[in-house]
């Protein structure tokens, strides 16, 4: 019996050596620690994305089935998304670009008679909502962050920042509902506006573009304030004083010294607001109406009532492409990898 534990036993010695060399190999610890998470993320995150990618090349069959045979695969969903049914590719590009220019310029401009696909229009609308939410959050959130980081008395700073974070822990569905409650017909805000002497009648504030964008700002503005605060707090304000000693006035010193130094926080905050706003589904669904369909609610509808899964899958990848492009261009402009 004792010989079983004898180290000189050649076979056992070999096994121990192999075991020991496995145990001591630097990659063993790596594999053990990394395996569970990577298997999970691989199977339940990457594989589903790959499945969706394949679906986006499929075709819709009768009764909402999906045809994924070789003869059905193609770019038809992406084409349907961007190219109106009776036009060629080049014409479609021209129509979309011209239509976009018409929307963007402030004066009345008539470049094309035809309109792009409704899908293109709702994608454009989502981007506009995202940009508006980002700009408004920046304009409202930056001064707030600056106040908390610089101007507020030191002993209140912690409680002020906690008050910014606290809503984030509360359920966002509840907060969206709270906005709905304020804006609903007969609610506090419309009633208050109607009570003004020069207004006649209650304004409609809910189920339109205004309520959707207000909801986006309300939910995401803390995400602008926090990174901006973190950046501003770290700035050495002797730099601003130096600029003022050298003849800059307050505004110049802020615009040319302080603000550029806080740019990392501003960029991080802008991405944190823009990304969820473009892909928003709940807010347009609860606060919006038929005229405020965004790409998020469109995707959801394709997998629900509209029942066109391939088109929904293609729209999902278009949404992801928009976000990747915006992240890449934003980070390149800011020139850093601080995320």
């Amino acid at each position, binding site marked *: 019996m004792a010989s079983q534990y004898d180290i000189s036993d050649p076979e056992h010695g070999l096994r121990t050596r192999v075991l020991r060399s496995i145990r001591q190999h*630097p990659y063993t*610890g*790596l594999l*053990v*620690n*990394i395996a*569970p*998470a990577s298997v999970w*993320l691989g199977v*339940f*995150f990457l594989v*589903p*994305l790959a*499945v*969706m990618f394949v*679906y986006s090349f499929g075709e819709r069959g009768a009764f909402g089935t999906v045809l994924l045979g070789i003869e059905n695969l193609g770019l038809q969903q992406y084409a349907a998304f961007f190219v109106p049914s009776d036009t060629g590719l080049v014409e479609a590009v021209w129509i979309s670009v011209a239509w976009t220019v018409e929307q963007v310029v402030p004066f009345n401009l008539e470049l094309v008679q035809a309109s792009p696909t409704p899908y293109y229009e709702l994608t454009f609308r989502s981007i506009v909502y995202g940009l508006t939410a980002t700009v408004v959050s920046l304009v409202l959130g930056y*001064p*707030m962050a*600056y*106040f*908390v980081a610089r*101007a507020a008395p030191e002993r209140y700073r912690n409680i*002020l920042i906690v*008050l910014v*974070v606290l*809503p984030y822990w*509360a*359920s*966002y*569905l*509840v907060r*969206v*509902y*709270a*906005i*709905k*409650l*304020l804006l609903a017909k*007969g609610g506090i805000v419309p009633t208050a506006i109607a009570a003004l002497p020069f207004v006649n009648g209650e304004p409609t504030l809910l189920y339109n573009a205004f309520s959707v964008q207000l909801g986006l700002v*309300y939910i995401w*503005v*803390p995400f602008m304030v926090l990174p901006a605060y973190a950046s501003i707090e770290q700035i050495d304000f002797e730099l601003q004083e130096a600029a003022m000693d050298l003849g800059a*006035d*307050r505004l110049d010193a802020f615009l040319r010294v302080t603000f550029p130094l806080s740019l990392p926080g501003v960029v991080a905050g802008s991405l944190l607001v823009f*990304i*969820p706003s*473009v*892909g928003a589904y*709940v807010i347009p*669904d*609860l606060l919006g109406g038929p005229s405020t369909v965004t790409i*998020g609610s469109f995707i*959801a509808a394709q*997998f629900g009532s509209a029942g066109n899964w391939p088109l*929904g*899958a293609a729209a*999902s990848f278009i*949404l*992801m492409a928009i*976000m990747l492009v915006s992240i890449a261009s934003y980070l390149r402009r800011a020139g850093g990898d601080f995320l």
Partner: protein
Amino acid sequence: MSAGYSSRFRRFRSRLMEKYGAAALAGEAMLMYLFLYTPVIVLIALSFNDSRYAIVWQGFTTKWYSALMSGEAIARVDPNLAWTSLKNSVYIAVVTVGVSTTFGTMLALALDRYDFPGKQLFTGVVYMPLIIPSIVMGISLLLFFNITGMSQGLGTAIIGHIAFDISYVAIIVLARLQNFDRTLEEAARDLGASELETFRYVTFPLIKPGVIAGALLGFAMSFDDFVVTFFIIGNENTLPIFFFGMVRQGISPGVNVIATLILLGTFLFVGLAQAIQGPTW
């Protein structure tokens, strides 16, 4: 001529900023706090409102609370259903946090300690669930469960929640590991501790605050998630899904009460976490 004008303008501008700048900043910040908190406070107040229409103030009452507490439905808001969905939410969140905290912490340790080919790409994949729109994640999981034939319910919801919670935990723990003193581990090994003993008595106590913070964030993310869950839970309910259904049907005193209870419950949870753990943000 124009130079004189512009310098006068600049002097005026800087006097204006010196005199009113601080007050304007403080005023703006106060308005923002008002903006953030007015809707929530109005919501809580209206849950005590003595009116079926729930919007216009008619007087104080607690009858909606007592009705719901005694199990009576108010305008389609069924307290029994709310109770079941709360239990589902807690069950999903607890299982999710257990698994994802373990896996996420291991992942963070691996990312902190080892270099391997393709590490940057791998880290990118780990960050992806945080960046990707929830609707895309939910729908891709829906397609996946559909073609693998897994029947949807609480189990599939847990699988999806773990998939995004791992990343949250890993990132928080990774941040904690950045200022971790490796020589402490070496000292433990030199004094004869095995790898597991070193982890149990040295590494883990040091990274514990990060692990707890990650678990708390993971819990909040799982408990509060609506979009991913909505697509993969089949016919079951969680609290957010139940609430979404209520809100879609419109405003009612019952919804106000449920919303207030969710809010107060969350704040209580955050307060407790603070008391146990210290600031988690």
